[in-house]
């Protein structure tokens, strides 16, 4: 254990300097006195170096993919190419207003148009829209499209159900609920959809079946064609959650598997940085049936010019302001151009190789549920740790002391004490081996050490129960609680 994170005794931003007593805001001619702020915003007045040092110190108390291996399952934490960062900051990308007249934004429109076309080939779908801000936003938009489709067919009254497997990401049922559907969960069998149970559950009430393939157990749903046939057989739509697309790039795609609509995460598969929680970019891809329902505007090419097309009578309309997270589209396009056909295919091959190689090795430390051939990620169960009085959570915290991030833990729920591990293609064999060694050391460490972890980070094990029981959610709360700021 040689890893040490910075541990700055850094005050909160409002404790860096005395905050001036608030006075009235300046009066603006014509603005009624009633509307005028009586007390200026309570916030410190800081010099630039004070601000830069504060946030630089905070940054040093944070893990990123640039500092360490980040094996979060279903998150596809791959290296974010620096060239993409440079390009997204060009004035031609960053300094363009979405409401500029079309002739002055031909470059943005062309980049969107090109990336959309490229992604139709990656997904095998008819049309692509880059409008959603994130994966869940894409899912939700897709379900609104499904809703609009059945409304047009006069079937919305009876198409009330969305079906999904018990391995689905939480966003799937949440999106379906927000879109007004009731949810039916289909049990898994050996980590994959129990097709018999699915067939028994589908009916003319089925609006949509949502599926991630490969799924969150890291398994390819090999019966996908049969699933598609069954869902279409009752007139339902099939939705592809693209969270795990990385594993199958260039080998199969949602179109070939029979999906009607899909979302992709540019911040996973196409290497745009995750920003400590966002922004993401959730691409929507639709087959022939649902393409007319994509959000407006669509970018179209007329002759050599690009323009925004609002004339889509069946479109669901807008799901956010403007046209999507364009800054991420630029990054993703650079990533796709760099890889090209063979490169993208290699991405899948290398991520699946990393995953199977690591799974085989770690399978000697902890049990692996289900079959052994996995795709980009795999599951382990931390159940045997319980015999030693420790849990998956302790193992996760102990891994942080090794200078690597922890895997996704306690998901999916069908595996007890689950660890979900994904090391994408940008991790070298050396990185994978180093992670494996760290993992083995952590598993074999004493229960005392596991429970005491982490010890090498800015803070020790955090009391999350207390955070929820006594919510302190802002400076205002801290003041109210009379909480003295501790900086030791």
């Amino acid at each position, binding site marked *: 254990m040689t890893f040490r994170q910075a541990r700055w005794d850094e005050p909160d931003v409002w404790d860096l300097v005395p905050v001036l007593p608030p006075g009235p805001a*300046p009066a603006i*001619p014509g*603005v*009624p006195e009633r*509307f005028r702020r009586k007390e*200026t915003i309570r*916030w410190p007045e800081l010099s630039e170096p004070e*601000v830069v040092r504060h946030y630089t110190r*905070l*940054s040093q108390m944070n*893990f990123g993919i640039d500092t360490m291996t980040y094996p979060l399952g279903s998150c596809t934490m791959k290296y*974010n*190419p620096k060239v993409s960062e440079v390009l997204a900051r060009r004035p*031609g990308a*960053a300094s*363009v*207003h979405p409401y500029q*007249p079309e002739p002055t934004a031909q*470059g*943005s429109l*062309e*980049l969107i148009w090109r990336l959309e076309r490229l992604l139709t080939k990656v997904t095998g779908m008819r049309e692509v829209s880059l409008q959603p*801000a994130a994966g869940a936003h894409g899912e939700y938009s897709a379900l*609104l499209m499904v809703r609009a489709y059945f409304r047009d067919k006069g079937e919305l009254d009876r198409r009330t159900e969305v079906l999904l497997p018990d391995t689905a*990401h939480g*966003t799937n049922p949440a*999106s379906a609920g927000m879109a*007004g559907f009731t949810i039916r969960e289909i049990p898994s069998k050996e980590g994959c959809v129990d097709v018999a149970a699915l067939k028994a559950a589908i009916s003319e009430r089925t609006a949509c079946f949502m599926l991630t393939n490969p799924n969150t157990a890291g398994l*390819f749903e090999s019966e996908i064609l049969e699933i598609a046939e069954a869902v279409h057989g009752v007139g339902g739509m099939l939705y592809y959650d693209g969270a795990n697309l990385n594993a199958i790039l*260039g*080998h199969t795609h949602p179109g070939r598997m029979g999906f009607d609509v899909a979302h992709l995460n540019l911040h996973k598969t196409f290497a745009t*940085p995750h920003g400590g929680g*966002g*922004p993401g970019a959730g691409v929507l891809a639709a087959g022939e049936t649902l393409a007319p329902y994509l959000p*407006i505007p669509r970018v179209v090419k007329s002759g050599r010019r690009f323009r*925004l097309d*609002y*004339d889509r*009578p069946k479109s669901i*309309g807008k799901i*956010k*302001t403007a046209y*999507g997270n*364009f800054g*991420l589209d*630029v990054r993703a396009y650079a990533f796709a151009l*760099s*890889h090209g*056909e063979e*490169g*993208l295919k290699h991405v899948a091959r290398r991520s699946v*190789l990393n995953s199977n190689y690591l799974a085989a090795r770690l399978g000697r430390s902890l049990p692996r549920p289900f079959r052994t*051939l996995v795709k980009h990620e795999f599951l382990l169960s931390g159940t045997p740790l319980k015999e030693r009085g420790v849990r998956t959570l302790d193992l996760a915290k102990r891994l942080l002391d090794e200078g690597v991030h922890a895997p996704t833990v306690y998901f999916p729920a069908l595996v007890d004490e689950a660890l979900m591990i994904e090391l994408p293609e940008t991790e070298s*064999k050396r990185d994978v081996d180093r992670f494996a060694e760290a993992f083995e050391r952590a598993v074999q460490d004493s229960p005392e050490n596991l429970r005491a972890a982490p010890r090498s*980070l800015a*803070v020790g094990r*955090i009391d*999350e129960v207390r955070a929820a029981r006594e919510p302190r*959610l802002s400076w205002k*709360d801290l003041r109210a609680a009379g909480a003295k700021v501790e900086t030791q």
Partner: protein
Amino acid sequence: MPRWISDEPHEEASMLEALGIASVDELFTDIPRKARIGRMGIAEGLEEPEVVREVDKILDRNRPVGKFAPFLGGRIALRYIPAAVDAIVSRSEFYTAYTPYQPEASQGMLRTLFEFQSLWVEMTGLDLANASLYDGATASAESLLFCSRLHEGHRFLVPASLPWEERSVLANYASGPGLRVEEIPYDARTGRLDLEFVRSAVAAKDVFGVLADVPNGFGHLDEGILDLKSMIGDVPLVVAADPLSLSVLEPPGNYGADIVVGEGQGFGIAPSFGGPLLGLFACRREHARQAPGRIVGATLDHDGRRAFALTLQTREQHIRRSRATSNICTNESLMALIFVVYASLVGPRGLAALQTSLAEKARTLASALGGIAGLQAPRFDSPYLGEFTVELSHGTATGFLDRLRRRKILGGHPLADPRPGAPPAPERLLVAATDAVGEKEIQRYAAAARAWSAAGGVA
């Protein structure tokens, strides 16, 4: 092949050997033959210099705002971004991190988000803020769903002057639970909300929330909003506020807002053709468990050291699934970081000074445009800050803007819903003062408008 994937000789071979297989192909036998594809039909990969040339070639077909005198605004602002903002947001410990699921490893981002939440609380006068939503429009839409959890009813009232994009987003979010978005008419002279309409709608008992924006979609301030809460009683009031305006305007929490949402892009975030943006959301303490999105809380570690973690997570999709308060997972954390860094660099006095200066420029522009035949500027007889609406009595907003563009002026943007089926609307445009324009650019704008007028409103 890009250098992002290690291709050390024998690396793959030794991994295959460890697995006891001959080829990576054997790892794909679980994909049935009938589901496999041949070529995708994508060009072969490029080396980094070629990628740069290729992308630059495309982006060079844009004419960035710096090539013009820019008067564009609306929910997306053009403002100078201090260099220090990019220095901090370029710290890759921040931008290459994932959502802080392991809080011990992510104290930097968590603390920054806690400071961000605190700032939005101070600005709005409410009690708690979340760690961001996608953008202002989806924040308004989440507030609609939020109100529906607090109050009975099917009708959600919004100003008819709300930008059409936002109304469309709201209609989408309302459609799932079978709710209705209804437009509050405005006074033709002042653009102010018809409060009698609100009063009678609320009296009919089916209204579960009312949203008002500050400034409104026309760029104007509506004093009537200060009295809305006393009129609607226990029906939740949402105020969609421009954050910069809150440097000089009363915090909405002080006049009864239960929720304050907003678009945060104007605080240091590049316009980037409309994304990523930043959705702001704050509410009252008693409604904390109904709030959408991630929330960071302060707590302690096992040594009693102060620490931060995502909290109140039982509201969220990964726990509550179909009964979550929202489906949001990935948010706009990095944009939230920019917001709080920008505000800390500029400071509360600097923000108020910036808003004051933009308001001055807008007034100068309005008076320069006064008396030009064929246009009314501002269209509404109401106070405004940095933006106002211009209405043309002949010609089209697009034609007017085209004419200005030929004189290197981005003169604003049309307000009308561009969908072919949309109801006919007056030729209006929203014009914004930006910090990139001064007296000279304002006079150029006026001269171009006079030339348009002299040509009879023909582009």
